[in-house]
């Protein structure tokens, strides 16, 4: 007791500042104790959850596969399957179990098509998993909304179209992105309608995703992309250019030629690349005569185009550009020259002091 009083006395006579520091230290100490204590609990929970997850994953994996093979092959659901569905209905009322089951199902639908995939979709519907997903769409938190759309995409629930289509303009980027993926995964080109009046920019990442999804489907009707090529939204134009290339949209060539005069540099470069891919000759004269006014990016793209289509008439233009300061252009110019006029290439008088040209010529000769 005496010690305690001594400490108290000592403390009371301390200057205010020191007292304050002691208070802070005391609070920190309590806080740290709490953190340490909770860390123990947290780590335990994480470990237990992981064990549980693995356990249930194994169970659901086997059960699901048994279920899939217990079908009678026709439309209906066999009694065996019915029993399993009913068991599952109870299990999935628990969020943890539901998530594990969904992840197992997802792993399968991603890699499997045909009857089995359809059986999984049916299972998703019959067990009522679908209702949980639909409910998520109404959630206030964006991450739950997005997860809901993601699930409905995975299991190809087309009837959520109306609700999800509205989310294409959601303020949160992730929700918008999931909505786009839903539309394109389930409705392919028809789902791309949202591009018509898109107010925000589609990121390169989004564009690649959409393109990859479209390419998973064969023999589909490609909508006219002209409208998108003429869009005021730069990202839509860029996306349409990718479509033009992947789906060989020669028909839109007139629009492409107009895009050569677009005020955005990247779009002009991409346009030249697409035209190069088409082995287009109509743009050649225009680009040649404007060569000095266009940016280096466009010049490089144009030379790549020339690699495909250059002929004798371009010889003068090519020779002039052997002394272009850009290494890539020099290289392409020399390669093209060799292709269109080998004797000329062999007897080429090299400009002095241009070591690069010398090296390139040497390289081309040896390859």
């Amino acid at each position: 007791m005496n010690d305690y009083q001594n400490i108290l006395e000592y403390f009371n006579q301390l200057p205010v500042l020191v007292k304050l520091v002691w208070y802070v230290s005391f609070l920190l100490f309590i806080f740290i104790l709490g953190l340490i204590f909770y860390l123990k609990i947290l780590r335990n929970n994480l470990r237990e959850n992981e064990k549980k997850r693995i356990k249930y994953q194994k169970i659901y994996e086997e059960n699901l596969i048994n279920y899939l093979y217990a079908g009678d092959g026709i439309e209906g659901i066999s009694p065996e399957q019915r029993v399993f569905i009913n068991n599952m209905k109870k299990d999935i009322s628990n969020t943890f179990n539901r998530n594990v089951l969904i992840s197992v199902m997802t792993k399968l639908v991603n890699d499997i098509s045909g009857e089995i995939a359809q059986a999984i979709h049916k299972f998703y519907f019959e067990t009522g998993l679908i209702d949980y997903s639909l409910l998520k769409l109404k959630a206030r938190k964006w991450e739950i909304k997005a997860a809901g759309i993601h699930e409905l995409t995975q299991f190809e629930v087309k009837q959520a179209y109306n609700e999800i289509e509205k989310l294409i303009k959601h303020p949160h980027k992730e929700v918008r992105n999931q909505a786009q993926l839903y539309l394109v995964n389930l409705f392919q080109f028809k789902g791309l309608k949202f591009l018509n009046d898109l107010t925000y920019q589609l990121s390169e990442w989004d564009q690649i995703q959409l393109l990859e999804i479209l390419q998973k489907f064969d023999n589909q009707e490609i909508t006219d992309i002209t409208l998108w090529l003429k869009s005021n939204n730069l990202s839509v134009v860029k996306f349409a250019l990718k479509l033009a290339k992947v789906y060989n949209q020669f028909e839109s060539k007139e629009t492409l030629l107009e895009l050569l005069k677009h005020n955005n540099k990247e779009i002009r470069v991409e346009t030249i690349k697409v035209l190069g891919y088409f082995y287009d000759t109509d743009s050649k004269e225009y680009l040649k005569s404007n060569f000095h006014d266009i940016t280096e990016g466009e010049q490089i793209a144009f030379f790549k185009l020339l690699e495909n289509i250059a002929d004798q008439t371009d010889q003068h233009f090519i020779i002039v550009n052997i002394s272009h300061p850009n290494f890539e252009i020099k290289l392409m110019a020399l390669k093209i020259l060799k292709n269109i006029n080998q004797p000329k290439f062999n007897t080429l008088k090299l400009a002095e002091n241009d070591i690069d040209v010398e090296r390139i010529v040497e390289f081309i000769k040896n390859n």
Partner: protein
Amino acid sequence: MDSSTVRIILLTIHVLFFIYAFSVIFSYVLLSFVSARESSQYMKRNSFVNYNEILSSTVSPSISIIAPAYNESLNIIENVRSLLSNHYVNYDVIIVNDGSKDDSLEKLIKAYDLVKVNYLINHQVPTKPLREGVFKSTNPAFEKLTVVDKENGGKADALNCGLNISQSKFVACIDVDCLLLEDALQKMIKPFLELTDVKVIASGGVIRIANACKIKEGKLIEINLPKKFIEIAQILEYLRSFLLGRMAWSRLNGLLVISGAFGMFDKKIAIDVGGYDTNTVGEDMEIIVRMRRSMEEQNIKYKVAYIPDPLCWTEAPDNYKILISQRNRWTRGTIEVLKKHRKIGFNPKYKFLGMLSYPYWFFYERLAPIIEIIGILYFIVLIALDNVKWDYAFAFFLAAYLFTIMFTIIAIYSEELTYHQYTKKGTGIKLLLVTLLEPFVLHPFILYAGIKGNIDYYFNKKIKWGEMKRKGLSKGESN
């Protein structure tokens, strides 16, 4: 001087120390909050990303991994194999053998069926000349591999050579002895493709410590907590630095450094600014500062991104001698970079970079060891003069200590709540124990290395590169 002047001087010194200490703690609290918010956002944003579509797409941009190697013969075959097994489709691997004196090249040729090829190099960044030349594999399974053998010029020079060789739009510069997880490239490329309103010029990754982890033939099999104090203490340091510090700075877009062990760059920008600086030991930090500076000067909206996922694992020093020489080098690197770019410091023209990032690095990284040692010396003088107010000293010391361990524990939390890599039972206790002791055991060595770095920088210019003697990743198995 009369006694009142001395008193005023001393008081000023005290107040300055107090302000410094207080601002350090304040900035840490702030950074912790920012990083907590950013981490939770990041985890949510990436919880349902389907990377498959990106990684398999032929439209995805090309990436070159550039890995300089100097006398890495011991593990080079396995390390290259690990680099070749990435899941991204449109990528290649450029190993730059920087004048190794060992049999690295012969080993590579044999293991990967390499043959010398004609290769036209665009010398966009000047480098040391080639030695044996450029090699490619005859086996289609190793088609992604290019090996360049050049004369020794140091790490920065080797990276520059890789920049010249690469035909890709992006380059991932890494240490060859790093173990890269298979999804590393797709995660690192994401910010470049994702942001529409700013230009992403680089993205940095986290470095994790591989000591004691089980690694088999270039693949991480099991994550273990190392046994030695020095190794665990470094894990805590890395967690603090990567999960608290850098996470927050990336959120504020003020990141000044991307670890040289793993970072991705927009190749064109890296080349346009002139590539890596061969005259500094801090080339990894220097190139970022230079790229940022160039963006600011051109008035382009840009960002240096940061990916907190544990994608890159490397061996950390397991004894104090090597640790000290490593930190000594880092200190010299920081000094050199800040000195070279002192123009941006406190210069409102460089906005956030000049007014916040640079000053922060200058005061809390660059000057930290110096201020600390002055404080300690001053304290010793006071003790000698029997002039210490122990009431004050003890209370402040305790508070500072508690703050330190609180931040470390918060760093452990951010690890547990995000990636939770150390799952084994008993790890938590060990981490906490080391947390309590680290300020007394590891920190003095770090401080010593910092001071030594300063001394070497100013008085010992000819110091050669601290060599890190690595045990080699695969030996971790035996632990």
